[in-house]
């Protein structure tokens, strides 16, 4: 009887698996019948850009530097490090830092990383790591706050505390480092003093130092770009598309020649920043819905030209250019790699690597334009305050030691370790004082290149001086193709005018403003994201657009913009 039962359960499990496989198989094979049917749908209303009468005057500022009244500078290292390592009175500190999922098969704590070992040896400071469970960083951090057991250094935690860093300092969670920085982190302080823009961004509105940020003063082309199938373009003898008309020709060809392939997969909320940028609204990234134009903060959802974007998207959806499943796709890269999708906006490095592995050709395109000659104002600008804030717990007994540890990543040699790995093993100092990877790092047969970025070196760690990705990432040095692929249309190579004048620097908010922004943003996003998808799919007619804007305003949009404007003005006035 028992054996019988076991047999039955095994058999059913097998049947279930077989059933799933069969379903998946039939799913892919039958797509051919579905994909082409909708191409006969009638064209939607015209998307002529003339619909909006607002021909913008030449923007006051050409670049973000002009807009915010700063010149981007490159600060050289001081001749000698300002702090002597190893430190005289060593000790042990603790660091809270999330661990990348990719490295968990090599080690369970960062302390086992050879780069960290060298950090320990060089600084004379021992460390222990606290790694939160992946996906539960916020809960874990707040639990540590409540239980009064915070480690000394808290890496990238500001976003986890309600109200951000100033609230956390006010509540006695993070320490105020203003009086300690000059003495215990002099090399970090050197960049604060020598790069005005960095000082402005990395300190609070009343010039306090709460967080130690990454510092990066070199620019690089952006890695998030529209991409499509180069092999298909060649097959059809087509050029890289620039205007939306060009894109539509490519989409038409895909519908005609590649049954079952969706021509374009937009981001799942339909708010594709790069494409919005063609209408001089939105911004680069999906998350960036605010932008600044001639000193005024704008919010994408109540811009009149959003209607033009929605008209275009609605037309594309009706014509079958847009994947029917776009609202539920989480792994866009996979859809593209599987050949189910012919174009998308994505990470150039990932997509290029995938294309090489799976043997098809891809190409990046310039930022799309409504018509040839249009300017694009949302190109990337890497602010010298390169994110990754590191704070020190207010109750830490090792504040000085913790600052000395963080400071090492801002010395010339320490930044080499933090960016390139173990000295003499993965890198050597080049003649011009810039580190260079060794052959061991570039051609390591034991570790796949995607993992090497996190095991042979530390791509993300606590705060550090950052080099450009072109020289400090193993993949980009070992396979220069990847870098060329990313850089193809970046940094002035766009055939049309392209600048970063509308980019918005990272703003800091007061505790009250942060809490109000949280409430307003949830309310507006809940409503607007729903409506935008409905406009795109046609569930709500575009004639409702005025009502949409009015409703957004009723939900507090003017107040939200005002809060941002106040923070931006405070930033400029600083």
């Amino acid at each position, binding site marked *: 009887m028992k054996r*019988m*039962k076991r047999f*039955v*359960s095994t058999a*059913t*499990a097998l049947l*279930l698996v077989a059933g*799933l496989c069969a*379903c*998946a198989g*039939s*799913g*892919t094979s*039958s*797509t051919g*019948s*579905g994909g082409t*049917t*909708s191409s006969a749908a009638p064209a939607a209303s015209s998307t002529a850009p003339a619909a909006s009468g607002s021909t913008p005057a030449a923007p006051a500022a050409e670049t973000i530097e002009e807009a915010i009244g700063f010149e981007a500078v490159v600060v050289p290292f001081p001749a000698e490090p300002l702090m002597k390592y190893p430190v005289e009175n060593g000790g042990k500190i603790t660091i809270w830092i999330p661990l990348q999922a990719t490295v968990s098969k090599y080690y369970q704590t960062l302390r086992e990383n050879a780069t960290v070992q060298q950090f320990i040896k060089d600084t004379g400071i021992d460390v222990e790591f606290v790694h939160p469970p992946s996906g539960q960083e*916020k809960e874990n951090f*707040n639990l540590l*706050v*409540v239980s009064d057991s915070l480690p000394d250094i808290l890496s990238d935690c500001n976003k*986890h*505390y*309600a*109200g951000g860093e100033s*609230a*956390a300092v006010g*509540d*006695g*969670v993070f320490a105020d480092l203003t009086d300690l920085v000059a003495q215990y982190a002099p090399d970090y302080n050197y960049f604060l003093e020598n790069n005005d823009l960095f000082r402005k961004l990395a300190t609070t509105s009343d010039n306090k130092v709460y967080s130690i940020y990454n510092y990066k003063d070199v620019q690089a082309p952006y890695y998030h770009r529209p991409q499509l199938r180069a092999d298909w373009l060649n097959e059809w003898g087509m050029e890289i598309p620039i205007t939306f008309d060009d894109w539509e020709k490519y989409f038409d060809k895909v519908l005609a020649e590649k049954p*079952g392939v969706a021509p374009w997969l937009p981001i*799942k*909320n339909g708010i594709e920043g790069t494409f919005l940028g063609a209408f001089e609204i939105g911004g680069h990234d999906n998350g960036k819905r605010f932008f600044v134009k001639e000193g005024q903060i704008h919010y994408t959802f109540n811009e009149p030209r959003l209607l033009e974007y929605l008209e275009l998207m609605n037309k594309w959806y009706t014509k079958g250019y847009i*994947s*029917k*499943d*776009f*609202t*539920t796709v989480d792994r866009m890269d996979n859809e593209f790699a599987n050949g*189910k999708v012919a174009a998308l906006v994505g990470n150039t490095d990932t997509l290029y690597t995938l294309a090489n592995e799976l043997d098809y050709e891809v190409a990046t395109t310039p930022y799309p334009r409504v018509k040839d000659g249009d300017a694009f104002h949302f190109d990337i600008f890497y602010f010298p305050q390169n994110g990754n804030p590191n704070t020190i717990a207010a109750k830490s007994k090792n504040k000085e030691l913790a600052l000395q540890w963080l400071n090492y990543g801002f010395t010339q040699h320490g930044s080499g370790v933090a960016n390139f790995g173990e000295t003499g093993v993965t890198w050597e100092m080049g003649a011009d004082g810039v580190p260079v990877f060794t052959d061991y790092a570039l051609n390591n047969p034991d570790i796949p290149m995607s993992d090497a970025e996190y095991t042979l070196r530390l791509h993300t760690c606590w705060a550090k001086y950052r080099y450009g990705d072109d020289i400090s990432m193993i993949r980009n040095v070992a396979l220069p193709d990847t870098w060329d692929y990313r850089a193809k249309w970046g940094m002035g190579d766009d055939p049309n005018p392209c600048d970063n004048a509308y980019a918005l620097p990272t703003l800091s908010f007061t505790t009250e403003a942060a*809490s109000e922004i*949280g*409430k307003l943003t*949830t*309310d507006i*996003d*809940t*409503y607007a*994201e*729903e409506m*935008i*998808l*409905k406009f795109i*799919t046609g*569930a709500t007619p575009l004639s409702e657009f005025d009502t949409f804007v009015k409703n957004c305003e009723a*939900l507090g949009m003017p107040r939200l913009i005002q809060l941002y404007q106040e923070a931006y003005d405070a930033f400029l006035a600083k």
Partner: protein
Amino acid sequence: MTKPQAVSAVPQVGEKSFFTRLKANYRRHKSLYIICVPILLYYIIFKYLPMFGVVIAFQDFRPGLGFTGSPFVGLKYFVEFLTNPTASRTIRNTIVLNLYNLAFGFPAPIILALLLNEMRGSRYKKAIQTVSYLPHFISLVVVCGILKDFSASYGIFNDFTALFGREPEALLGNVDLYRGLYVGSGIWKNIGWGSILYLATLSGTDPNLYEAAVIDGAGRWKQLVHITIPTIVPITILQLIMRVGSMMSEGAEKTILLYSPLVYEKADIISSFVYRRGLQEANFSFGAAVGLFNSIINLCLLVGANWASKKATGESMW
């Protein structure tokens, strides 16, 4: 169950006070009382003590300041939730989804149990039971992943409807189908597991009853209506009352895995809204306030359902 009250209820010791009786009872059933201690501790530590945490619903809770230091704001977060423009929609969606679950999800395991109970071939019956349990052990994330793939425009559901000439579409993006898919997948996942309780109850039925019914000339249908169903009525009502008592709560996990802004209109429930507003913004007070609000309504529903059932059928939880 080894509840102290149940034990003490057995021997009636005249008019003596509760503590005298307890003492006498304790002496007699010492080991039973000791066995109870861990369970009591469990409830005190993990269920009763955390209830004090509910104060954060009335505070502007800041982890750095703790329970004692956070400013008291009264009903601010309750008002904020109820005056939110989408509040009525999320409450309605939560209730409707639960009503769907009640109408379709609740009877499904009972029907399965009744059907299985009527089956003769014991091997075949066991096989069916095992198969129907399996989905219960598949993680919710995986179930939702499968459902997403199946209902994509290239998925098996569309292959099937295409046979009847329907245009393929992303079914999860169709606001009219969302609830059906949500409830349907829930039934698929839970039907087998849920039927265990009823099957266990049915296995305790006295075979003499059926024998007597057969002699009286009752067919299978009559046996079902007059013997089998009455056997499971008490447990069914108990389950129903508990189900009604959780009307306002529906976990956020499945909704977050399945929904998109396109179907907010029918998919956005209280817990998913709280997830976006409370957890993503680290606003614990808001989450606690909504949780408390839900619990109070659930409690009222539970008491009400229990009362109604007592009046109507004589069956109740207490």
